[in-house]
């Protein structure tokens, strides 16, 4: 991939810039282009000159009625700020403290350049369905079996897309309930049920076992409310074997209906 494929190439000549195509990927892309084109040392960028050239490109883009995205303007402001900071007198020779005002910009430029190069390497790879092809169907003689332990192919994004569609159709009250996000008590309920799943059957759990030491106050309240909710739903039963004795919780075995 040419790095400027699909972006803009600014061809510098004596008359200024001619703009081909529409836009750079972003201000960092444009800055790198200018720095590399003029063969400036990236660790010692002549900020005043690069700012001038950068602004000239933005002007050209405006003249050509190209949309100059706000990110480009933010970068222009950043460059101007660095320029003014560089004009300030250096804070003495005991330096170390006074970091080069350009340091952060250089770090970002190098990181972007690395990632841009990584993207080019990615683009150079043969892409499935473009340069290389796999079999697009399963041999009919092969039994397709849904294994109980087959990997489940899922991704949260698809779940969310489906949920968004649900919300669009759903009754108002449902949407409101979801918006209230009662998740944390539900989460605590799930955790408690899981503790019971792993606990030895029949023995139950001591009430205190659900509240390990150093549990935060909010967490205590949430867990407590979750226990109450589970008891109310009859998923848990509370037993006190002796008066004033230990309170134990038991999972209620559920029969399918």
């Amino acid at each position, binding site marked *: 991939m040419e790095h400027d494929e*699909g972006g803009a190439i600014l061809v510098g000549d004596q008359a200024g810039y001619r703009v081909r195509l*529409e*836009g750079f990927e972003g201000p960092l892309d444009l800055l790198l282009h200018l720095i590399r084109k003029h063969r400036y040392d990236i660790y010692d960028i002549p900020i005043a000159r690069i700012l001038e050239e950068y602004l000239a490109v933005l002007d050209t883009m405006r003249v050509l009625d190209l949309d100059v995205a706000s990110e480009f303007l933010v970068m222009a402001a950043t460059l101007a700020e660095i320029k003014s900071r560089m004009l300030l007198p250096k804070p003495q020779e005991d330096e170390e403290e006074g970091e080069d005002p350009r340091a952060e910009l250089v770090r970002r430029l190098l990181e972007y350049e690395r990632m841009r190069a990584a993207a080019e390497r990615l683009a150079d790879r043969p892409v499935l369905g473009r340069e290389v*092809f*796999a*079999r*697009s*169907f*399963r*041999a009919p*003689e*092969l*039994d*397709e*079996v*849904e*294994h109980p332990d*087959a*990997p*489940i*192919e*899922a*991704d*949260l*994004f*698809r*779940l*969310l*897309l*489906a*949920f*968004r569609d*649900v*919300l669009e*159709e*759903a*009754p108002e009250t*449902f*949407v409101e*309930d*979801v*918006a209230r*996000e009662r*998740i*944390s008590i*539900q*989460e605590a*309920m*799930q955790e408690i*049920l*899981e503790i019971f799943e792993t606990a030895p059957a029949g023995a139950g759990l001591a009430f205190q076992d659900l509240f390990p030491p150093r549990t935060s106050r909010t967490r205590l309240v949430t867990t407590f409310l979750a226990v109450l909710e*589970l008891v*109310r*739903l*009859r*998923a848990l039963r509370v037993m006190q074997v002796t008066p004033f004795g230990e309170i134990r919780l038991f999972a*209620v075995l*559920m029969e*399918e*209906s």
Partner: protein
Amino acid sequence: MDPETLARAVEAVLFASPEPVPLARLVDLLGPEGADRQAVLEALARLERALAGRAVEVREVAGGYQLRTRPEFAPFLARLEVPRPVRFSRAALETLAIVAYRQPVTRAEVEEVRGVDCGGVLKSLAEKGLVRIVGKKDVPGRPLLYGTTRKFLEVFGLASLADLPSLQEIEELLAQEEKPGDPPGAA
């Protein structure tokens, strides 16, 4: 294009095609490389010879050519159960999302939201270990309540239910538009 390369090109085409490829179609595809009907037939014969010792052969089926595993591997392949990764239907995803965000929830409540019967979907989600019964609702009839499982979290890469994006986050996420500068059809 020399006969050997042509034979390989035919192999590539047959390999990648989901259906038998008619001779005329092969000539169409390889014609721009200077191959006529006769050359393609020769390439097919050459490919057949090249595949002599392999697990796969060229077969003329349903008016076209196709690569197939040799019959002697059929009994063997029949024994191989290739597990198919489970993919979710739209109904399953919607139901799962409702259970995740509204748990504990009864079947009737899920159905009220989706507007259709969800018994089968819930059962299948429970079989896959993604939802489970967490109790009974304290209302007349004491309907079963469903919630998600630890496996649900694992499958969707969530550390806990608190990691489910909030409604606001979903909206932000899904409201994103691609920038107009990106070419159509590009990822």
